[in-house]
């Protein structure tokens, strides 16, 4: 961060993103993110369970409006996020490099993240078409099944990915009308906070995406156990970790979505089934007659 030359640079403060605002963690705690040489890059908020609780409140409050937004509008907003990210790709490349990536791989990752957002933007008004059905019941009824967003989704973003893993897990959740609370990678948290700024500039309504930084071992149980969260997504951990999450999720029959060992750089790491995983299916009957 210290640059050679006469001008004294201004260092960025990395905060968290809750309800469309950028507060510090209510706990006041932090952890120092260091580069490979042990030099401190930044002080990162060590988010608390209360931050998570507040985020869930914000996400729940934002859900009705976001779910009611037209598919077209959600698609436009996701496309806008891509536009904003494209405009700021240099910053994200720099942050990835600070956290240990090579320039070439960092650029590739940022490009892939932008393209992934466009990919999901394109699904907003189509996934309903491929996953819904009109069912030919044998009685004189019009019967149709449609997808509806499940609600508030808690996302434990992949720990080994600075940006692509994060974007890959947020986009399919929100394009389907859900809101989310996301725990950023603990090893590489910088881009998550900058990505919050991109979201903020993209007409994403407050509370639709909430991004926290902090320690996995402190926060996972809250992500998994909160009674007002409808689904939990996790991308890391061994069998024991998974079991713990699943057990806690059972509190309120949370939908549990296991994305462990996904190679987010792969083409198949983006597909509409990832949208479907956080959707419910509603079937309606209505008589046909006069």
């Amino acid at each position: 961060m210290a640059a050679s030359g006469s001008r004294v640079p201004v260092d960025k403060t990395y905060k968290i993103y809750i309800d469309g605002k950028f507060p510090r963690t209510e706990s006041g705690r932090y952890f120092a993110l260091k580069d490979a040489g042990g030099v401190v890059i930044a002080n990162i908020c060590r988010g608390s369970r209360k931050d998570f609780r507040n985020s869930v409140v914000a996400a729940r409050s934002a859900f009705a409006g976001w779910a009611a937004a037209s598919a077209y509008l959600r698609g436009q907003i996701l496309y806008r996020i891509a536009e904003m990210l494209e405009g700021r790709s240099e910053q994200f490349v720099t942050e990835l490099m600070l956290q240990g990536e090579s320039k070439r791989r960092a650029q590739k990752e940022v490009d892939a993240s932008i393209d992934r957002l466009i990919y999901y933007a394109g699904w907003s008004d189509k996934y309903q078409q491929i996953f819904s059905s009109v069912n030919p019941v044998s009685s004189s009824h019009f019967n149709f099944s449609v997808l509806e967003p499940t609600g508030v989704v808690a996302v434990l973003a992949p720990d080994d990915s600075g940006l692509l893993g994060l974007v890959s897990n947020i986009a399919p959740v929100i394009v389907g009308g859900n809101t989310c609370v996301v725990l950023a990678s603990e090893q590489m948290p910088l881009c998550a906070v900058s990505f919050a700024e991109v979201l903020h500039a993209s007409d994403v309504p407050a509370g639709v995406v909430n991004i926290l930084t902090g320690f996995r071992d402190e926060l996972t149980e809250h992500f998994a156990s909160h009674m007002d969260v409808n689904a939990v997504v996790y991308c890391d951990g061994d069998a024991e970790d998974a079991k713990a999450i699943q057990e806690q999720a059972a509190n309120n029959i949370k939908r549990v979505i296991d994305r462990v060992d996904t190679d987010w750089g792969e083409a198949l790491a983006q597909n509409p089934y990832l949208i479907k995983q956080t959707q419910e299916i509603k079937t309606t009957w209505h008589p046909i007659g006069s």
Partner: protein
Amino acid sequence: MSTESSKLAFTDGWQYAPAPESTDHVQVDAEYGLFIGGEFVAPAEDRYFETINPATEETLSSVALCSDADVDRAVKAARKAYSGTWSKLSAADRGKYIFRIARILQERAREFAVIESLDGGKPIRESRDIDIPLAAAHFFYYAGWADKLEYAFPGRKPVSLGVAGQIIPWNFPLLMAAWKIAPALACGNTVVLKPAETTPLTALKLAEVIRDADLPPGVVNIVTGAGATGAAIVNHPDVDKIAFTGSTDVGRLIQRAIAGTGKKYTLELGGKAANIIFEDAAIDQAVEGIVNGIFFNQGHVCCAGSRLLVQESVADEVVQKLKDRMETLIVGDPLDKNTDIGAINSATQLETIQSYLRLGREEGAEMHQSACKVPERGYWCRPTIFTGVSQSNRIVQEEIFGPVLAIQTFRTLEEGLSKANNTPYGLSGGVWTDKGAKIFKMTQSIRAGVIWANTFNKFDPTSPFGGYKESGVGREGGMHGLGAYVRLEV
């Protein structure tokens, strides 16, 4: 003072002052060439024709007349772009180009809206609020399908066709161009498109957008001309697929011309839709639906609700309310923001409509028009209804394509249904009832491709559109609209 047909007084008193849309930011060139191979080029025979403003009869611009040689050139450019570039791009990149078209259209929306109204006569409020936003939305929707086609065809591998020849009408010029170009490109095809001869301008401006979006040259080619140009496109041996929207008569000619060639085709043709109002409908909203169904866009709508079938028990009430509502419709300068009904698109079309008005009276029907003033210059038709008509009247059977409604009554659901289906057309229909079960029974039984229940003339890029019977074959819009532009391999 109330008129004899209404107890309410809609003339006199407070009037709306002119509210003209500003046009000084709009750029229309004096002359346009053909858009072939990514640039505007002069036509081979150096011939041009004029496009006029039907509200003022003034010339707007001079556009190139595309000869057979020009069509050949355009198809060659489209073929070269197809084999050389477009089919080699990744599907995601194709999508990105189409997204660009959508975004640029959104940026230039107001300019396009003004030009659309100038060239075609439709009210600025419609171009601004409906035509242009929907056109951009179509590009946006289909852009997203480009890299997702395999999901739309379970068990099959969709493969692009090649070069699509597309011929569009004058009633929704830019929107029809979007309906044609967007899915064609998304599926990996290249395009030669001919706008209608009375409304070429927004297609030519779209060519500018395509150029500015940096689409590879030749992917979209836009050629201007009339029937002969269209025929040349249809008959060209190197066109793989024809898409046509227009009259049933021309559609028939095209289907014959293509016979034996193996070309794929979709036809979106005329209609004579029945708008059916039951006694248990929300009557005031149904009346609004009638107005929207036949007077929107001056009735220049293939899916217009041009026949009203109203259950006898509420017929008088409906007709009275309709007449009152007609008195509040403003016919006038398309560029005035308060205009509801703009200019009839051309002198020819106006003559056609007027001949039907004469015919209707000759056939013994009773004609009623609103009392509104119309400007002196330009082509105008007041909103018109005919009562005292029967199923055999020609004004009930034939498509008029103007703001003219034929009104019949029915007594039972079966009778209403029978009358609704008793036509060689089958594009659309409307059902108005508060009873859900009846809605589904009617939608199940009406033989038409688009059925509006308790609404009318609603369009969305995700919603398929197309007709049964002589209203055409094939669907545009939605997931189903992709099928016309791919071959399915196992």
